[in-house]
Structures are given as structure tokens and as C-alpha cells.
């Protein structure tokens, strides 16, 4: 463990914010396409919307290198696009077509994969990323690589026992993990305070000796700076943890009307939309609102085109189920 410079402040705020703005817009545009698929019943599984949390995902991925490992979570898709994944492959997975990253096996919110980009998939049982990311980090270290293993998860998943088991081990071995908790205060219908007796996740990471930061997840730039710091720490052998306080604007899944949730809270969440906040700050910094509209429009166009491309791909036939089990 060498000393770590904590000078992670961004010098070109406007440039970085523009980059993040674009990624948030892209993730959101992709999600809008998926909502469409749900509506037209082209996709009939569960989709867990990420609206409100795209800033965290975009910013952390911006702080990662191309080959750093990513285990994403189930909420939205901005992790994937921000890490560089081809939206055609993502949508191919939703459509269950062979162009999908799983080559027709299908993936809803989880299981998209791109080994070239370090996107190592995701489990449907939440909290499995703690141990897997520790393993990836171990491999990186053992093979003399500099890759960090970044894992996203929610406040709910932070209660899973795997957090503790992987956490003590990551600390003991100085593993390059970056754990990012998107604390949106809810796990489906359960308020974190009600079921975990606290609203704060960071203390449990700090207790294990992780480098720990708590950040406003609606402020993409702040998340980016925290992520830079975390990645630097991790590359130097100090496991890092970020708790991003964020907001789930939509229901748990598309179609969930959130009857269990206060309307005011949802309204407050909407008022702190990370895309809007980044846009407002950019405008303050002199960015032309038309340029921002242009970015959003490009994102929409990109994702619409990606959807059209994905639809060109054939569906697998039934024998697909027998392929790929064994190496």
C-alpha cells in the first residue's frame, strides 16, 4: 500500500460534466426504448428502471479504465452503456435475439456481458457481486494486472451476508475492489430504515477498514470525484466503498405504481433528477441549452437505431438451451 494522492478534483468541470451529461442521456434514452418494449410486450420480463440513478452509474464508470472489471446491478442500464457496451447487444438481449450479448439466451436487467470491456455479467440473486468482485480483484492482483473490480449494488443488497464475508477478505488481502452502493432508500417496498434499522450503509464498510465515502448521488460530478479517489485507493490495495445517496424515481419494476410510497417523496426525487441537475449546472457554466437538447436528441436517435438494428437479428431456436453449458 503506497500513499495515495487524494487530488481527484476535476479541473475541467464543464468538459467532464458534458461527458457525464451525455452518458446519463444515453442511459435514459436506452431505458426509454426498453419501456417501449415492455409496453408493446416485446419484452415481458421484469425491468427495473434506473431513472434518477443514472448519474451515479455514469460517473463511476467514467472513472474506470476500459479493462477494469464491472459487475453492474439490476437497476437501469447506464452502467452498461457508460462502460462502453454496444446498445444493440443490450437490446438484443431484451428482445431475446441472437445479436444479444448472451447470443439469444436473453437477459433482462441482468446477465448482459462483454468480457472485452470487463463487463463480467451480473447475478440475479442480489449480493453475489461482493464475493465475485473480490475474486476478480484477486485474479487481477495475482496476474499482475492493474484492473480494479467495481461492483454496484443497492441498499437492500448491502444487508446480504456476502458483503461481510467478501469485505473482511478484501481488506485482509488488500484487494482492488470498488464497491458502489446506490442507496435509493428502498428495496422494492421496504424502506431501508425500517428493515435495516439505519439509513446509512457506509459505516459497515468503514468498520471493516474500507476507504469509505458518502456522496450525493444526484450530483454526477461529485460522484465522479469520489469514484476517482476510490479507484486510486483500490489500485493501491485499499478496498474502496462509495455510498451514493440517490433516488428511485420510478417503481421497483416497470408497472409498479408504488402504492407503498409517499407521493411527495417521489415528487422530491423527480425534482433532483440528475440529468436536469447536470444540465442546470452546465447552463450555469455557459453551456447552450440547445446543445444539451442536441445531446439528448442524439442519444434518442442512437438508441432508436440500436433497437431497429437489434430487431434485424433472428431469434434463436429451441436447441439454443443446450448450448454453452459446458466449456
Amino acid at each position, binding site marked *: 500500500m503506497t500513499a495515495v494522492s487524494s487530488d481527484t478534483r476535476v479541473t475541467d468541470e464543464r468538459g467532464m460534466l458534458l461527458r457525464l451529461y451525455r452518458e446519463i442521456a444515453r442511459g435514459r434514452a436506452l431505458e426509454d426504448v426498453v419501456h417501449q418494449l415492455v409496453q408493446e410486450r416485446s419484452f415481458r420480463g421484469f425491468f427495473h428502471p434506473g431513472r434518477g440513478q443514472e448519474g451515479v452509474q455514469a460517473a463511476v464508470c467514467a472513472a474506470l479504465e476500459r479493462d477494469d472489471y464491472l459487475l453492474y446491478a439490476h437497476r437501469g442500464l447506464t452502467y452498461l452503456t457508460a462502460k462502453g457496451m454496444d446498445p444493440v447487444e443490450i437490446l438484443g438481449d431484451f428482445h431475446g435475439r441472437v445479436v444479444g450479448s448472451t447470443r439469444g439466451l436473453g437477459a433482462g436487467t441482468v446477465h448482459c456481458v462483454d468480457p472485452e470491456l470487463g463487463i463480467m455479467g451480473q447475478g440475479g440473486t442480489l449480493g453475489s457481486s461482493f464475493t465475485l468482485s473480490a475474486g476478480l480483484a484477486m485474479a487481477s492482483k495475482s496476474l499482475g494486472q492493474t484492473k480494479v473490480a467495481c461492483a454496484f449494488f443497492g441498499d437492500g443488497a448491502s*444487508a446480504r451476508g456476502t458483503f461481510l464475508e467478501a469485505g473482511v477478505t478484501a481488506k485482509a488481502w488488500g484487494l482492488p475492489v470498488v464497491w458502489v452502493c446506490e442507496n435509493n432508500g428502498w428495496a422494492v417496498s421496504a424502506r431501508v430504515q425500517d428493515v435495516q434499522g439505519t439509513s446509512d450503509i457506509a459505516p459497515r464498510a468503514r468498520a471493516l477498514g474500507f476507504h469509505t465515502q458518502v456522496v450525493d448521488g444526484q450530483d454526477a460530478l461529485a460522484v465522479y470525484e469520489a469514484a476517482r479517489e476510490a479507484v486510486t485507493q483500490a489500485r493501491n490495495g485499499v478496498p474502496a466503498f462509495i455510498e451514493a445517496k440517490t433516488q428511485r424515481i420510478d417503481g421497483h419494476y416497470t408497472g409498479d405504481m408504488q*402504492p407503498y410510497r409517499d407521493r411527495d417523496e417521489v415528487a422530491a426525487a423527480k425534482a433532483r433528477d440528475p440529468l436536469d441537475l447536470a444540465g442546470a449546472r452546465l447552463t450555469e457554466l455557459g453551456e447552450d441549452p440547445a446543445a444539451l437538447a442536441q445531446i439528448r436528441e442524439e442519444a434518442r436517435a442512437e438508441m432508436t437505431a440500436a433497437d431497429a438494428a437489434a430487431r434485424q437479428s433472428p431469434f434463436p431456436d429451441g436447441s*439454443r438451451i443446450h448450448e454453452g453449458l459446458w466449456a
Partner: protein
Amino acid sequence: MTETKPITYAWAINHAIDEEMQRDPTVFLIGQDVGRMGGVFGLTRGLFDKYGAERVRDVSIVEHLVVGGAVGAAIGGMRPIAEVQFADFLLLAGDESFHKMAKWRYMHGGRLTVPMVVRAPCGIQGGVGAEHSQSPEAHYWHTPGVKIAVPSNPADAKGLLKSAIRDDNPVIYFENRRLYRNKGVVDPDPELLVPFGQGTVAREGTDVTIVAWSAMVPAALEAAEILEREQVSVEVVDPRTLVPFDMETVAASVRKTSRLLVLHEASLTAGPGAEIAARAADELFELLDAPVKRLAGTDNPIPQNMALEPFCYPQTDEIVSTVRDLAKW
């Protein structure tokens, strides 16, 4: 009030829980979203309002605690109904289900009791993928100390769940998600229980016996209808519980048919059908005129692509053709 309108399998489960919670204050629910939300599949709707947060306990993502906590509460005098959102998640609580729930009583000389139920929604449906579609019946059938219920219709769903809740032993109650909306007439008598270890003949026949349970029963009955038109007479035996297993009803049927097909949704190899086939190959050897056949889920995880799901478990046409071949022996 005689309620003769058909109700769904889902509501039958809800009613069973409601009635037992009403009857016995030590019965309580624990699981994710069972409370305010009424369950991710709506199964526990209304119970939170009726019984409150102490008896309908929402938890975080803590499957170990759900099952292990239920074991602790059970030995402490309560009768927990623990819900995992998907049966696959029960395997996450491996220590708690395989070692604690099943063994705690025995390990301690039989001096403690573990009256608890785990409700485990199982089955392939809805594109929820490899970790949300399993029917891990065999894992627990191979675990001495656990009873297993596998209801195929609303009446059994209610009666078996009530029996399970009153049982002093741990019970895993596999409720198949594909059956939730199926309707049937359910006697409203709150004292009507379906006993464990007593199978039923869901359809009588003379040529081939199909042993099927859970969502495979409707499929078997559908196949039997089709086969009837081809003059193949199928008897469908629904054991209703796997532990205890009613081999006698199977034997009685094979005594008539001399031909046995075991049908299930879980993957074939080392699945629950193996036990039944193995027992037949031993105990019913002299009755059999044909090989014992198994038709079951394919040996692969369930893909998330919904269009691929039907390839992963026995479809009516496959059942028909398998029985047709078997009848030719």
C-alpha cells in the same frame, strides 16, 4: 356462508394463511415485501392491515435471517411462515435450510421442535431466468427432517398449507407460479385440512400411470384427454406431498396399468423423479411391463429469454408422445 365460487390457487394460499393466523396467534409471516406490499405476487394481500407489522414482518435482503430466524422463532414457541421470493433463493439459506431447519431437532436429541413452513414460489414462468425459475424439490427430498408439499390445485393448496402450518415439523411448501391464477372450488370450512402423505388419483385410467404433481398435473390431464381420443387410457396420480411420499397409491395404479411415467418440471438428472422411478424399479419390479420412464425438465439452467422457456420443461405434446410409446410396450 358457503363459498362455492371458484377461487384462485393464489387466493387459496392467502385464505389458508389468514385462517391460520386468525386461529393461532403464534403463526406469523416473515419475508421480503410480504407486508405493506402484500407480496411481490400479491399472495399476502390484506394481511398486514389485518395483523400488523409484528405478525407480518417485512425484511431486508436477508434470506439467511428469514430461514434461520424462523428456525429460532420456531424453537422459541412460534409458528413462522417464512417466504422466500423465489424457491431458488431458499438455496441461498443453505446452512439454515439444510442444516438448521432440518437437523436442529434431531441433533439435540429430539428435545426441541421446529414447527415452521417455508413458502417457496417455484416454476418456470415470466422470463425471470436461471436463478428465479427452479423447483429445488430434490435437494430437500434428500434432506431428512423436512416435509415437502407440492399442491397442484386451489383446494390442495389451501388444505396442504393449513396442514403444514399446524405440523410440528419443518415443511417446505412449493407453490408453482404458473398455477397462481388457476381456479377451483375450495370448501370454505376452516377445519378442512389435506393430510400429508396421501396422494390422489387425479384421473382414472388403465393403460399407463403418470405420476405428476404441481403444475405438471394440469399438463398430464391435458395429455390424458388427447390420449383418450387415441384409445390410450391414462391414470394420473398426484402424490400432493413428496415427504411423506404415498407410494401405495402409485403401486395401486401400476398394479392396474403396469406402465409408469414420472413427470416433473425440475431438471431430469438426479431430480425428484429419480427417487420415484428407483422405488418403482425395486418395489414394483414384478408389476412392470415396460421400462420406467421419466419426462422432466432439461438439464440446463433456465434462460431468461421467455421464448425459450417452453423448451425447458415437459410440454403436452411430449407427454402425449412419451405415453403413446410407453403404451405400446
